[in-house]
């Protein structure tokens, strides 16, 4: 009797686990089916490395969008990661438990704010501020990076807190017993031990940043050219798909699916590189 019910549960769970993989495969197959013929027709070189995007007259070059996507993603990471990790270090190593009780729920709440709200604040407050202080159109790579930095902050911070807390207390005690100050103990022992977790948080944050669409459309300005500086307007891969999907037909539509393929590949490369880095560090530690 026991064995039967065990088996049923086991098989049901297996089926559920398979649906995730199944969904991924179906989505990938669909995007490739729609976009791949286009890639062959236009030529991957033309598509990837031309800077001329005028779908109305048959020019499909997404190089500026690839570059813009990387700009805003790494810009967001450059803002979100230091803040998130520093905040996590304070909360888990130095701050009083009461700080954790206040800050942790606040971060979780921040994670729940819809991206359109971030975008709205970006448009109403951040972009005019950048325009006034630094010049340019305001709707810019910088605005997108700041908005993304705040958006990925909760992800990075909460994963960093978890990984710092999972470092055994004996490590800290050992370091302190050897005469290290608290900061030395954190810097030389705790951070080293927690590094894979911190990196994992950054990878997840990066994934969220590169995939974010709504907030980026609202604050990046979406101009179809190579951004010359952080104050220039730019269009990311996701924004390109979302902006034009509603209208696109024929070749144009296929071009947007091909943009999806590129996004897919970029994300796989970034995730792969980060995972490899993680694994190498793990191996080196042993």
């Amino acid at each position, binding site marked *: 009797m026991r064995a039967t019910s065990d088996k049923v549960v086991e098989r049901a769970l297996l089926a559920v686990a*398979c649906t995730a993989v199944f969904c991924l495969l179906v989505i990938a197959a669909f995007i490739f089916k729609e976009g791949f013929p286009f890639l062959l027709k236009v030529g991957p070189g033309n598509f990837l490395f031309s800077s001329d995007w005028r779908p*109305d007259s048959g020019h499909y070059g997404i190089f500026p969008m690839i570059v813009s996507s990387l700009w805003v993603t790494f810009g967001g990471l450059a803002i979100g990661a230091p803040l998130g990790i520093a905040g996590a270090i304070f909360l888990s190593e130095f701050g009083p438990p009461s700080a954790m009780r206040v800050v942790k729920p606040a971060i979780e709440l921040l994670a729940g704010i819809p991206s359109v709200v971030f975008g709205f604040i970006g448009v109403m407050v951040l972009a005019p501020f950048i325009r006034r202080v630094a010049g340019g*159109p*305001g709707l810019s790579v910088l605005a997108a990076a700041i908005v993304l930095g705040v958006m990925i902050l909760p992800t990075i911070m909460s994963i960093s807190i978890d990984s710092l807390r999972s470092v055994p207390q004996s490590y800290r005690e050992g370091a302190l017993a050897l005469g290290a100050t608290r900061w030395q103990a954190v810097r030389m022992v705790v951070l080293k031990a927690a590094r894979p977790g911190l990196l994992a948080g950054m990878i997840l944050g990066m994934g969220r940043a590169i995939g974010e669409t709504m907030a980026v459309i609202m604050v990046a300005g979406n*101009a179809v*050219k190579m951004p010359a500086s952080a104050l220039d307007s730019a269009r990311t891969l996701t924004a390109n798909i979302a902006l*034009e999907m509603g*209208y696109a037909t024929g070749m144009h539509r296929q071009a947007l699916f091909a943009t999806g393929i590129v996004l897919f590949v970029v994300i796989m490369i970034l995730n792969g590189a980060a995972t490899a880095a993680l694994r190498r560090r793990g191996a080196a530690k042993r």
Partner: protein
Amino acid sequence: MRMNPPFPAPRRAIRAALLALACALALACGSCAGRGASVTMAGSTAFQPFAEKLADEYNASHPEGNVTVQGGGSAVGISAAINGAAQIGMADLVELPPDASVLTPFVVARDGIAVVVHPSNRIKDLPMARIREVYIGAIRNWKEFGGPDAPINVVSRESGSGTRSSFETILGRFDLSTSAIIQDSNGTVRETVANDANAIGYVSYGLVNEKIKAIRVDGQACTTELILAGKYVLVRPIYLLTLGEPTGAAKGFIDYVLGPSGQASIKADGLLPAK
């Protein structure tokens, strides 16, 4: 794809799960087909708010009326009307594309496209040719118009937008400057211009408010009188499109929109009547 499940993966379980999934999908689709005879409209985001109001009025005065309105853009309106996803497509283009020739067009209203700048901008009047040069990217600084030494932040719409295609067609087809900021609706263009003293944009006439300033084009202000007199040139028709002659509820709704109360409602909300 190779997985290493902790237990052997029975094929039957996977098959059963897929079957269950298929059943769930079939049920979900079955329930959505069960609604009564209704009219779905889709298309132009510029006309969408007016269409929603007209649909509300029509539904309120016609007990059997069940008109629902969706956006999507003019291109979506045309393709939805062709493939039957919507009984009525909405489009706001100066020229309907060739594939719309199978549809029956009804001009239900006209809409001016106002060229707008920030209220603090002292420019009051620009010729069409200069506006075109600004959008091409040939003129990039306000001082060329006697304004301050500040860059012109050009704001346009995404390619495929009916407002954009009408704007570009009337100005004489051109390739938009690649530096142009792209916003994906009339409302966000308005917000962008309202927030940027150096911006220039264009929005549907009905959406002009005190946060932005509409300038004169070729000396003609964007007003109801001048548009009706044919003096203000940035005007586009708004079409309702049906596949073949409209019948039943779709016909009833189009007749209502073209009738006196529909036209009065369109006029009251800032659009221009069809005739």
